[in-house]
C-alpha cells in the first residue's frame, strides 16, 4: 500500500476509535502494525528534533509547560498531549496531527514518556534533548526498585544527542551526569531555603535530610515562592512572576521547563514572552486542575506515589475544604497498596475526610484510621461516592485526591454536571 493511503487509513481508524469512545491504543497499534517506520519517519522530519521528558513525578505538567514556553518563542510544537505516555500513544497522537500525505507541520516534538517506554522509544528515534525530573518510589511492582528506575533514566540521557537537563536536587538524577560522554549537561535546582520542602524517599525516615549536597551550577533555580509569586534565578539574574499553577511541586516543574526551554531556544530567547507564557500556564488535567461545581471550585489532584501524595498534602491545605480520596489498584495505578503507609495523613486530622472511594477504598480508610483521621463515608463505587461528596459538601470548596484510573473515571462523571476539558 502506498504511504498516503496508509496515513488516510490510520486517520480513519483513529476517528472510528474516537467515536466509539476509545483511547489512543487502537489507532496507534494499527499504524505501528501496517507501517512500522511511521513514527521514526514522521518525527525524523522535524528541524529541531525530539525532546523527551521523563521521571517519576511531574511529566505531564512539565511537558505542558515546556510546550507553551516554546510556543511563546514562535516554535510550532508537536506533543502527546493526551497523557498517553507510551510509544503507541505517540504514534496515535502523530496520526491526528499529520496531513494526509504524512507530513507533520512542526519545528520540534516534546514528548512525555514514562521511564520504561522511553527506553523503548529511544531505539526508534534518539532525542536531541532530554529532561529528567526525578526518581521516586512508584510502581515498584513494575520496576522492582528505584535504583533500577534510575538506570532507565541514565539510558535516556546516554541516547541524547545534544543536551541533557537534570534535576540537581535529586541525587539519583544528578549522578547521571557522571555517566555521560559528549552530551552537554545543564541543571535546574532549588535555593537552600526551599530544599527542605522536597523530602526525597531517602530523607523520609532520616533526620539528616538534604544536608551535605555540593551545589552544582544550575541554569535555573527556583529561589523563593509564596501563595501568589515565584522567584527564579535564570542564569545570572532574577525574575519574579505570578503563576496560575498551584502546589510547590508544580512550581518546581516550572523551573525544569524554563531550563529546558532556555536550552532549546538558546541565546535568542525572548525572556519577557517566556515569563509571560509561564505566568499563564494552567495545570494539566487532573494535576491540580480546578473545575466549577455548584458555583464553587472542585480541585482534582492526581496522587500516585508516596512523595507525590506527601507533596500534595503539604501544598494544598485542607482547612475549609471538603476532602475526598479515591484509590484504585488497576495496573496503571500500581497493585501494591504499601505506598499509602509511607504517606503521613495527620494534616487531615482536624478536618477529617468526607468521602473515601475507589477499588481500595477500605485500604485507604484503614490507613486513615491508623493516623486517627475520621472518614464520614466509604464506598468503593466512584459514581455514588462522588454524588455523596458533592451533596454533603454544599457551600464548601472541594478537593479530590485520586489515583490515575480513579481520576479518569471521576472526570467522566464530573463531565455530566460541569465543564470538563475533553482529553482524547
Amino acid at each position, binding site marked *: 500500500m502506498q504511504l498516503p493511503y496508509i496515513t488516510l487509513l490510520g486517520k480513519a481508524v483513529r476517528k472510528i476509535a474516537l467515536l466509539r469512545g476509545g483511547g489512543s491504543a487502537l489507532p496507534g497499534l494499527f499504524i505501528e502494525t501496517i507501517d512500522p517506520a511511521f513514527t521514526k519517519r514522521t518525527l525524523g522530519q522535524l528541524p529541531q528534533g525530539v525532546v523527551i521528558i521523563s521521571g517519576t513525578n511531574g511529566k505531564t505538567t512539565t511537558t505542558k509547560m515546556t510546550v507553551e514556553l516554546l510556543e511563546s518563542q514562535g516554535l510550532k510544537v508537536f506533543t502527546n498531549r493526551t497523557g498517553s505516555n507510551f510509544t503507541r500513544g505517540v504514534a496515535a497522537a502523530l496520526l491526528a496531527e499529520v496531513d494526509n500525505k504524512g507530513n507533520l507541520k512542526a519545528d520540534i516534538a516534546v514528548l512525555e514518556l514514562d521511564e520504561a517506554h522511553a527506553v523503548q522509544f529511544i531505539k526508534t528515534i534518539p532525542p536531541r534533548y532530554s529532561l529528567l525530573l526525578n526518581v521516586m*518510589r512508584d510502581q*515498584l*511492582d513494575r520496576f*522492582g*526498585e*528505584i*535504583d533500577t528506575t534510575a538506570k532507565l533514566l541514565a539510558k535516556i540521557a546516554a541516547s541524547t544527542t545534544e543536551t541533557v537537563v537534570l534535576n540537581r536536587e535529586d541525587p539519583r538524577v544528578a549522578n547521571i551526569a557522571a555517566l555521560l560522554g559528549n552530551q552537554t549537561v545543564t541543571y535546574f535546582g532549588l535555593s537552600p531555603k526551599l530544599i527542605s520542602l522536597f523530602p526525597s524517599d531517602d530523607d*523520609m*525516615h*532520616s533526620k539528616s535530610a538534604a544536608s551535605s549536597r555540593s551545589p552544582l551550577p544550575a541554569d535555573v533555580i527556583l529561589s523563593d515562592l509564596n501563595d501568589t509569586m515565584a522567584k527564579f534565578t535564570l542564569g545570572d539574574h532574577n525574575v519574579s512572576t505570578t503563576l496560575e499553577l498551584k502546589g510547590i511541586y508544580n512550581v518546581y516543574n516550572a523551573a525544569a521547563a524554563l531550563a529546558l526551554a532556555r536550552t532549546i531556544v538558546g541565546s535568542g530567547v525572548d525572556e519577557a514572552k517566556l515569563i509571560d507564557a509561564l505566568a499563564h500556564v494552567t495545570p494539566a488535567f487532573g494535576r491540580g486542575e480546578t473545575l466549577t461545581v455548584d458555583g464553587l471550585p472542585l480541585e482534582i489532584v492526581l496522587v500516585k506515589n508516596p512523595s507525590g501524595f506527601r507533596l500534595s498534602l503539604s501544598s494544598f491545605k485542607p482547612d475549609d475544604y471538603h476532602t475526598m480520596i479515591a484509590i484504585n*489498584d488497576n495496573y496503571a495505578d500500581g*497493585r*501494591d*497498596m*504499601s*505506598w*499509602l*503507609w*509511607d504517606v503521613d495523613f495527620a494534616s487531615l486530622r482536624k478536618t477529617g475526610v468526607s468521602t473515601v472511594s475507589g*477499588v*481500595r477504598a*477500605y*485500604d485507604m*480508610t*484503614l*490507613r486513615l*484510621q*491508623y*493516623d*486517627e483521621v475520621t472518614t464520614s463515608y*466509604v464506598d*468503593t463505587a466512584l459514581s455514588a461516592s462522588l454524588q455523596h461528596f458533592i451533596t454533603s459538601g454544599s457551600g464548601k470548596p472541594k478537593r479530590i485526591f485520586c489515583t490515575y484510573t480513579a481520576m479518569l473515571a471521576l472526570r467522566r462523571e464530573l463531565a455530566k454536571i460541569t465543564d470538563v476539558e475533553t482529553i482524547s
Partner: protein
Amino acid sequence: MNDKQITILQLYPHDMNIYGDWGNVLVLKRRLEWHGYIAKLVEYNPGDSFPEDVDLIVGGGGQDSGQDTIQKDLLSIGTKLHDYAKNDTPMLMICGLYQLFGKFFKAQDGHIIEGIGLLDIETHAGPERLIGNITTTSDQFGEIIGYENHSGQTFLGKDVEPLGHVIKGAGNNGQDNTEGARYHNVIGTYLHGSLLPKNPDIADFLIEKAVIKKYGDFVPTVIDDRFAKQARAITLKRPR
C-alpha cells in the same frame, strides 16, 4: 491508659524501609495505645549504640544498595539479637531483613552475603522477581494477606517453621508452598502491603508476647477492625 510502657525498636529505618515498612511500626504503636499501653519508638541505624530494654523489634525491606549498607553493622549486633530472640522477645522481619536474619544470601554471581543466622533459612538469588498479591494460611492466624516483591528464593531449615502455606502467590521460593519463617517469637516474612494493618491478629500476637514478657499478663481491649476486615475481603478478590 495505664503507665505500662512497651519499647519498639525499628531496625535500620533509614536504609530498610522501602515497602511501607513504617505501616507495621505505626500499627504496633497505635494498637498498643488502643490497648491502653504507652508505646515508645526507638531507632537503630548503622553505627548507633544498641538501645537497652527493648520489648519488640521490627525491621523492613531495602534496595540492594540499602542491604549492602547495613549488612556489616547487622553482623556486629547479631549476638545481641540472638539473645533477645532466645529470651522470646517478639520480632517481625520483612523481606530484606528476613533474608539477612537467615544464614546467607547467595547472589546471582555466586558470591555469598553472610546473614546473622538467627533464622535457620538460606536464600538464593532467583531468575525472576516474584511479584504480586499473595494469600497464605496458618493454623494460628488464618488467612494472611499481603503483597510480595522479591527476587531471592528462601529455603527453610529444620529449626524454623513456616509462617504460612501459600494459597495464592509464590511465597518463600515458589516451589515448596511455604511462606515466611518462625523461631521462638520471631516472625520473618516476604509479605508487605503493609503486613500488620490488614493482619491485625499478627499485630496483636506480637503485642501480647511483648506485654506478657514484660508485665506477666495482657488484657486486650476490643479494637474496631471492620475497615481491616473489608480491606481484606476486597484484597482477596484482586488479581495477582
